[in-house]
């Protein structure tokens, strides 16, 4: 298919662009296969480059022959184009609609993007499971790498390489996979070096209504327990939901078959409930005229912060089992690809200092989200403005990022990255020139040959010039476990995401700049003092030498 077929009118003059914080500007609108471009020809500052894949929804309306297209982006921005001429406007609108909803992944921009920067390190090879395993292998010999999923035959949503208990062979893993939802047998998610306790994750057990059991499954998870120790099973669904799942062949671990495990049910919402929540929240944040009661009412009704609190609470619980109770944990919900990953990854943020560094956080996203098979392409297909309401769309990853932001706010010095880093990840998960977030799992990515055909986000981010934008100037390595407060008074609306386009952050940005200046100045002074000190010491020794006989 040629993009040209979709572009009925590639170019319209005298289009007026309205967008947040800038005065309206008139210019020429151009459509390309992947971008919507507006250039004013006055100066280059006024140009709009918008990826079609960033467009969530469009509205059009007409007053006489003047058409208006309102473009609602996946990053929640809303821009407006006034286009003279009804035909041009209709053509542009239908082209945008077609181009922003391309069926085939291989037509997406990452497959066409040619980077204008020098690749220092290929991000596709930055985070290999083998490297991760090496980090553990110095501390423990109880685990091994398994290649049982090499051809993605055992579990289509797992990567080819997983970490499992050493005592369990691949044959047993195949049997366990048959007993777990989507073939997602329990694998190692996190090893707590301090006490050897682990977090594992999986899909729900397929017990069904007649209470099926699987000896290998029981053996596998028991293999992770030390003698005489108990573990915790954290089911991210309420007991009620978990019980209902049995009717569809799913279920949860029966006490009788897992006597060494104590099961705890939490209830983290899924799918459309989360999507609805996001839609309501963004709607509330976009309205400038709400009075206080209406704003607070809408904020409450969106339930967004309730979801944040649920997720954080469950993550704290998991972390507490590990660090305080000295007990290992197995976490799952239904598929084990959404709430499960929110919990396992946030627990690591709390427990593991490395995951609070830039590199470590990237590794965490690579391991716990991309390789662990969070279906990014489905979940991030649409954002807050779409009306299609597909069952599989949900802001699961955004909720995770929001939770990280909440912890970052409570421990502003313990993270190597800043808020911009999180915002950048949100943007790229929904629309990007990079291939990283394409596909729903490693198997799909492999088939798409993303490594050969697209650029990794990490190749771009991990260059010094980019990293400097995402580095937290206040960072000081903190090797402790960090326990966030989950009280409603301690949780806040993430303004950097949700009010980003509703109000100017000029004064806040300037204050941030000033803070950076103070820190930079401090470093400068420290360095200068050190140099002078050395100089003085040298002079003194010289003098001393001269004077001593």
């Amino acid at each position, binding site marked *: 298919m040629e993009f040209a077929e979709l572009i009925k009118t590639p170019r319209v003059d005298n289009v007026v662009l309205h967008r947040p914080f800038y005065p309206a500007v008139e210019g020429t609108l151009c459509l390309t296969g992947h971008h919507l471009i507006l250039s004013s020809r006055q100066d280059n500052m006024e140009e709009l480059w918008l990826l079609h894949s960033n467009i969530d929804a469009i509205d059009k309306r007409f007053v006489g022959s003047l058409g208006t297209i309102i473009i609602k982006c996946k990053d929640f921005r809303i821009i407006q184009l006034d286009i003279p001429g009804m035909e041009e406007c209709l053509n542009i609108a239908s082209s945008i609609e077609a181009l922003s909803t391309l069926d085939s992944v291989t037509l997406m921009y990452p497959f066409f993007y040619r980077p204008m920067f020098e690749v220092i390190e290929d991000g596709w090879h930055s985070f290999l499971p083998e490297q991760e395993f090496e980090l553990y292998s110095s501390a423990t010999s109880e685990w091994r790498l398994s290649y049982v999923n090499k051809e993605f035959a055992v579990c289509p949503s797992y990567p080819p390489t997983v970490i499992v208990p050493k005592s369990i062979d691949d044959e047993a893993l195949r049997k366990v996979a048959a007993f777990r939802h989507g073939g997602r047998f329990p694998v190692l998610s996190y090893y707590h070096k301090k006490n050897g306790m682990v977090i594992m994750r999986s899909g729900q057990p397929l017990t069904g209504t007649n209470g099926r059991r699987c000896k290998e499954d029981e053996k596998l998870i028991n293999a992770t327990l030390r003698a005489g120790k108990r573990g915790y099973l954290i089911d991210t669904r309420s007991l009620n939901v978990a019980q209902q799942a049995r009717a569809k062949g799913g279920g949860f671990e029966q006490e009788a078959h897992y006597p060494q495990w104590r099961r705890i049910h939490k209830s983290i919402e899924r799918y459309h409930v989360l999507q609805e929540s996001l839609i309501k929240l963004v709607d509330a944040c976009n309205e400038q005229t709400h009075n*206080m009661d209406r704003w*607070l009412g809408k904020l409450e009704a969106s339930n967004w912060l309730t979801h944040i609190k649920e997720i954080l609470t469950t993550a704290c619980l998991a972390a507490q089992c590990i660090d305080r109770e000295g007990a290992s944990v197995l976490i799952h919900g239904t598929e084990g690809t959404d709430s499960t990953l929110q919990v396992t990854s946030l627990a690591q943020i709390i427990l593991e200092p490395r995951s609070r560094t830039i590199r470590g956080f990237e590794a965490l996203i690579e391991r716990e989200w991309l390789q662990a098979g969070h279906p990014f392409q489905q979940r991030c297909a649409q954002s807050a403005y779409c009306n299609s309401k597909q069952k599989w769309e949900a802001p699961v990853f955004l909720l995770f990022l929001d939770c990280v932001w909440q912890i970052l706010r409570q421990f502003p010095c313990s993270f190597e990255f800043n808020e911009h880093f999180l915002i950048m990840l949100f943007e790229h998960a929904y629309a990007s020139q990079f291939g990283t977030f394409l596909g729903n799992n490693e198997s799909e990515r492999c088939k798409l040959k993303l490594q050969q055909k697209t650029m990794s986000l990490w190749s771009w981010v991990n260059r010094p010039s980019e990293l400097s934008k995402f580095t937290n100037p206040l960072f000081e390595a903190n090797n402790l476990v960090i326990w966030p407060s*989950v*009280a409603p*008074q301690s949780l806040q609306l993430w303004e950097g995401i949700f009010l980003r386009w509703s109000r100017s952050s000029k004064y806040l940005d300037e204050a941030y700049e000033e803070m950076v200046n103070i820190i930079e100045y401090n470093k400068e002074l420290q360095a200068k003092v050190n140099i002078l*000190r050395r100089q003085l010491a040298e002079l003194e020794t010289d003098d001393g030498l001269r004077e001593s006989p």
Partner: protein
Amino acid sequence: MRTNVEQVKLLDRFSTNNKSLTGTLYLTATHLLFIDTQQKETWILHHHIASVEKLALTTSGCPLVIQCKNFRIVHFIVPRERDCHDIYNSLLQLSKQGKYEDLYAFSYNPKQNDSERLKGWQVIDLAKEYARMGVPNEKWKLSDANREYKVCETYPRELYVPKSAILPMIMGSSNFRSKGRLPVLSYCRQGTEAAICRCSQPLSGFSARCLEDEKLLKAISTANSGNHYMYVVDTRPKLNAMANRAAGKGYENEDNYSNIRFQFVGIENIHVMRSSLQKLLEVNGNKGLSVNDFYSGLESSGWLRHIKAVLDAAIFLAKAIVVENASVLVHCSDGWDRTSQVCSLGSLLLDSYYRTLKGFMVLIEKDWISFGHKFSERCGHLDGDPKEVSPVFTQFLECVWHLTEQFPQAFEFNEAFLLQIHEHVHSCQFGNFLGNCQKEREELKLKEKTYSLWPFLLDDKQKYLNPLYNSKSESLTVLEPNTVSFNFKFWRNMYHQFDRTLHPRQSVLNIIMNMNEQNKQLEEDIKDLESKITQCKNGILTKDLLHPHPESPALKTSLCLKEQSLLPVNDTLRAIEGSNPADNRYCDFPEEFSKSEPAVVSLEYGVARMTC
């Protein structure tokens, strides 16, 4: 009276696993003191106690809940009921004083002599402040009509009125205004003639008029040649103002006054504000509060709605003055609550001086203390009518806090300054906020018998400076805050200032403050080192600097600096409380925010719930 009880438990009000500290409770003349087994001290000033409640006896003892005016809530369990009863009775007596002379300020002794004390009282001079505004001038004069408090008892002696306002006009207008509070100058903007004036409601009833009052308003209007009309802002909701007419009070009839534009801005009265705060505190005190309950509580309390209303009114003032160059006359009913809020906030938006440490003190002295905001009644300093208590001044501080959040570089002071002022408005430790008007303060001889708060705050300046303050920014001369509802947040550091588990464990403000301090020290060190090096090079070194000690003293200081990088700004904190370690909240700050404190877990659903 019992003075100490042992084996008392102090509960953490937000922990679900009923964590508690055991220790001894002491009663002193001024404070309630709890010392736990780790020797950590919790001081509670008797005057800060808003209510004491004895709950039903439990198996572990008798619970005693103390709520403080600085929003600290402590929950003790006293093993024996008799002891609890004794403490309860003692606290009831100690926390409610019948007369001013029994308040802490009259016994508080920071070891200063009379002249130091007097100098302290002279730190703020309102005559100088009016001079700073350029008053008196050809339009405004100082009137001596109230020199003996004969025109208005609740006003200051010095009143600034339009030059053309003759005595009969002043007397006449005063008689036509509630409590005699006639229109006078509050703020005059330099470079223009637009002014903020204040008064109380007119006694207009349904039809009464007063020619002198009309003339005085006309005089205020004509004192501003920049615009031919002026605004009269009634800060009350229209309905309240209309209801007042039946009682012979009311609001200005536009037809009777030439060239006024009359405007209601709808701020609720002290009773609504009091119950609003009560609701807010009730909701937030709940253990295991859900997000939805928190927000629906926040909404139904109406607290942020009221805050927004006050700020919106102040913006109206600032706009009238800046955009239209029109003067504004502000009143409410008596002109000492809402009027004080709106006039002071309006001035704060207009004039960057009021956003400095000293300027903010001046603003409080001018629009709150001197114009007779009834601090003692509103804060319940003495055992009095609970219906007179209202968080009007707290709202003012909160509005300022919201501004500091929107304009982080526009204020010379930081949040700790606002919190400290709030602390002392209720502490009765200093004389500034005692009494309800200047006349009463003079009768109490506060300047001879008590100390002023301001010099103590200025001495501790370092703690209250905003490290990000930019005094030169031109875009920050007149503040134009955005009052879209989503800009208003719950002020956790005020209403939960003692609930340490709810706060961030690392404070960016403290770190940057310390770094700023450290930078100054480093600059000194560099100068020092450079001069040493020059000396060295010039060969005029003294022997003992060389041998046998290779390190110079300067060298040592700079070496130490690394460890000091988080040097506590808090060392000198106690100075303000004199010899008393006191209940100063800031004692908690270093621990609260230090990063190495993972021990305090605020999980509401932690291990305790694992059984579900």
